[in-house]
């Protein structure tokens, strides 16, 4: 029982980390109708900026305080992500207003390759460290209930809390603010939104900025966990089944989807893996998402789209 609980909790916490990346997909799709294939590349780019500036700033300023260095690096990384967002709007998206979804998807695929390449050219392709003081050692809980207790990874637990906070903030932003409502209007119909005076270019810059900050938070957490290197961009692939399952237009869906995928893949690997040779967690997540799609093509919380012809 204790082991089952450990696996379950481990899955839930991994799921929250997937949700963090999935949020980037949801944000951009919700606000612009674009399936942003570059989300993984943005996570890598943001994490590289954070890691490298937190290394460079103490050298430039001759300081030793890690907290201040991290804070400054975070601020610079935010600015970098804003510049990236602005450039994406100016150089790519501006020319694609009212184009087919597939065209926009392909554009983001191109953006992903450009970001991957530029990121590694500017910041390097080695492994870099982000040290934001996350605890690495495990903690044992419920030792009086279960023999040996239940192992909790403190780092994952804190990361899950940060992800939860981010989700709450974003939900409020989308539901309660005028900008959030404008973002949703743009997603529904570019032309209609423009006709009532919503400035499309500014809205797109805003949404890519918000997605950039989400990517930065995801990059810091994943980078602190895995080290900052190219593989960070592949974690977007782990978030894809999450958005398929949770729905592309729902922030809470990204969370619930993440939790289901996280738990599903861990339980499947631990309990089914040994019977089929192991290594099944990646495809199992996609299979789980596909099964959901059979019954709810729009995902668990996605909006049902009805086109009249």
């Amino acid at each position, binding site marked *: 029982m204790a*082991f089952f609980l450990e696996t379950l909790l481990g899955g839930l916490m991994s799921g929250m980390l997937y949700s963090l990346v999935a949020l980037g997909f949801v944000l951009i799709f919700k606000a612009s109708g674009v399936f942003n294939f570059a989300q993984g590349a943005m996570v890598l780019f943001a994490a590289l900026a954070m890691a490298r500036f937190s290394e460079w700033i103490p050298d430039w300023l001759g300081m030793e305080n890690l907290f201040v260095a991290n804070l400054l690096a975070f601020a610079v990384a935010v600015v970098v992500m804003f510049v990236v967002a602005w450039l994406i709007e100016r150089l790519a998206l501006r020319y694609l207003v009212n184009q087919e979804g597939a065209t926009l998807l392909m554009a983001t695929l191109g953006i992903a390759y450009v970001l991957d390449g530029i990121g590694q050219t500017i910041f390097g392709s080695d492994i870099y*460290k982000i040290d934001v003081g996350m605890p*690495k050692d*495990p903690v044992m809980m419920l030792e009086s209930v279960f023999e040996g207790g239940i192992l909790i990874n403190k780092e994952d637990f804190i990361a899950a809390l940060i992800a939860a906070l981010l989700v709450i903030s974003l939900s409020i932003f989308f539901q309660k603010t005028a900008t959030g409502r404008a973002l949703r209007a743009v997603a529904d119909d570019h032309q209609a939104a423009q006709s009532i005076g919503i400035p499309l270019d500014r809205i797109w810059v805003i949404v890519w900025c918000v997605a950039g900050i989400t990517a930065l938070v995801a990059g810091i957490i994943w980078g602190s966990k895995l080290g900052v290197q190219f593989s960070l961009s592949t974690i977007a692939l782990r978030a894809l089944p999450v958005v398929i399952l949770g729905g592309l237009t729902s922030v809470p869906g990204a969370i619930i989807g993440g939790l289901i995928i996280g738990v599903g893949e861990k339980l499947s690997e631990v309990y089914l893996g040994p019977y089929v040779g*192991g*290594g099944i967690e990646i495809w199992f997540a996609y299979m789980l998402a596909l099964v959901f799609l059979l019954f709810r093509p729009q995902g668990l919380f996605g909006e049902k789209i009805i086109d009249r012809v």
Partner: protein
Amino acid sequence: MKLRKLAAAASLVAIGLSGALTTPAFAAEEQFFPLLVYRTGAYAPNGVPWANGFLDYLKLTNARGGVNGVKMIWEECETGYATDRGVECYERLKGKHGGGTAVQPLSTGITFALTEKAPVDKIPVITAGYGRSESQNGAVFGWNFPLVGTYWMGADVLVQHIAKKEGGFDKLKGKKVALVYHDSPYGKEPIALLQERAKMHGFDLSLLPVAHPGVEQKATWLQIRQNKPDYVFLWGWGVMNSTALKEAQATGYPREKMYGVWWAGAEPDVKDVGDGAKGYNALAMQHGAEPDSKVVKEILEKLHAKGQGTGPKEEVGQVLYMRGLISSMLQVEAVRVAQGRYGKGKRITGEQMRWGLENLDLDQKALDGMGLGGVMRPVKTSCLDHMGSAWARIHTWDGKKWNFTSDWYQGDEKVLRPMVMLASAKYAEEKKIKPRTPEDCKK
């Protein structure tokens, strides 16, 4: 008309003169090597130092005057550790500059793909410390050279080491060993040997695959926490290694009981983990980090001090840099051996290179002369033995650097040879290959 003829004649003379000025009277011979590397992508942190070490040794060879005056030339192609791109690179480069002399793909997947192409193109495939373990048998795998180490040999040494720690092979009975491996041809290579050893000594072997690139291993380490193996063997590459160490820390598995293969025992695998990797052990494919070796000092002096080195100076002498350097040295020495038979100072062909690789004899004196004394042991290949040396040792990360923590071990021929012969015979049967005989080798 006369003026036009005069101008044409003057132009021809000018062209002829410029040619005479730019081309030496006796053009130096050049030996071309296609370089399949990966400097981008998920495995770049490990691929880059290997490639830099490889290149620096070629540059050093040229700085030393080449091989009997023959200069080494090369062209890089980025594979990204992807088999399809690796094959594409090979096809693109193999015919350039008069033809490739040998190729080193640094990927077991690409090696598998090139194994059938090599005999057709007559270009040896050198896989120092990787590739197919049964390709040690030169009778069947005439063009593959897993020089200095195969995965079966490495896995055998690991079992010998834990047996020594436990007090003998008989003490392994009932022990639990988990193999956490990259779910790829590379990661699967040691399984056959470990299963054989498990059968011989009665230890329990559990196999835990990790999907590429290896960033998600929580479920794997939860299983390790549940099964509590006595030892974990790590057969990872790239980010998979550091992730495994971080998960081991997060699940409280002692790093002292973890043993990585030589591709899981370099600076990029541990530097990001720091103290969390303290006590972690890995195979050293003869060499470890060798910043004090003579060859490293020579490279720093002749290349990096003049701004001609490849990559950062700090990397020179690190584990993967040395692996690349040694891989490069082995092929340069094979060129030298081949020239000894086919003509000193002459460019050799791929077929002649194979002869050179099959007749390598790097004794201690030769190693000392190259500045590699203390870095590696002598290597002696033959037509039938394409590995040439089966020695390895263990090094351990102390939080700052790798230190050797064991004596030398030699792969046990009594275990390895029958496996190599059986697997290669099966391959020969499948591919309808007529194994070479000792007589064939004399040709």
